[in-house]
């Protein structure tokens, strides 16, 4: 390979200082890899984005989170009930999902999907993951509510 311009070394050092990965990132990835159940057969949904509906600091108000995989799409509306409790209203299309299973720590919650709609009224704030069963099995990545 041709020799790299030394400026790439400076660019690298600059980005490492000025836009470093979040401090928790590596540990979160190690945990995600360790928690992965290799026996479960599902397609992974990708996060398209999250947006806050109300102006405020992170964690306040209502957050909308969107995931997709091929034709399937999932929209979640996460409301803050109080500091440690969340309510999740969800819509899922394009998968024929009839059940949503949500894991939060050691806890598992299930909800029926009716006409593409499901809800989890009371959830602890924290990291969760949602699995959908139907025509195809789908799973979100681990994410924070």
């Amino acid at each position, binding site marked *: 390979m041709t020799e790299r311009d030394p*400026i790439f070394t400076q660019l690298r050092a600059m980005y490492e200082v000025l836009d470093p990965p979040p401090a928790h990132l590596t540990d979160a990835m190690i945990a995600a890899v360790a928690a992965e159940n290799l026996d479960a057969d599902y397609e992974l949904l990708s996060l398209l*984005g999250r947006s806050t509906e109300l102006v405020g600091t992170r964690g306040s108000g209502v957050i909308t989170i969107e995931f997709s995989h091929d034709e399937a799409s999932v929209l979640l509306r996460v409301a803050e009930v109080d500091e440690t409790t969340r309510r999740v209203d969800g819509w899922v299309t394009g998968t024929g999902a009839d059940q949503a299973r949500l894991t939060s720590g050691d806890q598992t919650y299930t909800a029926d999907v009716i006409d593409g709609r499901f809800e989890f009224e009371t959830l602890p704030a924290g990291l969760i993951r949602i699995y959908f069963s139907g025509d195809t099995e789908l799973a979100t990545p681990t994410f924070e509510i």
Partner: protein
Amino acid sequence: MNFVTSEKSHEPAESDDGPWIRSGEAFARWRDGDRGAIDELVREMTPVLWHVVRAYRLDEDVCEDVIQFTWLTLVRKADSVDNPRAVSSWLIITARRQAWRVASRNRREDAVDDELLAPALPTSPAAEAEAVSADDNHRLWSAVAQLNERCQRLLRVIAFDDRPDYHHISEDLGMPVGSIGPTRRRCLEKLKAVISGEGATP
């Protein structure tokens, strides 16, 4: 002094193959049944993936998800990596493609607030002790910010990928593969021109 042409060699060569080799070995051990070896690989490559994905101007949550997607895809499809020593390239390509997919789908919205991309101040003494001074870093950041988006992305990806795969980069950037080399050169020239324009101030 113009830091770009400085001949101080205050850092080890970045094209050091060490991390690539360590990653390949850790991956090979993990595939052979050493369950803990994957942690070494995750530690080695997660920061690199961050910078590659962040080059697509995605916000933090989305970058984190793209990186998680990349790792979960690796553990689920470990057999699709033909050569364990190529695992770093495999990870970078997978992360870049996913970042590109998400960025394309989000294009209808504004990708990210400028605020989110504003440089954070160095937070640790270790960062302050960087051989390249904070001042130089901020000047370089401002200079890069004056380049077009494509140049910014290309330079950041190449800065963190010692063995850039032009074939895949060209697909992601929607450019013929033959034009990546010249584009890279033009982006570098522009960057240096911006810097030397500023270089007049001591």
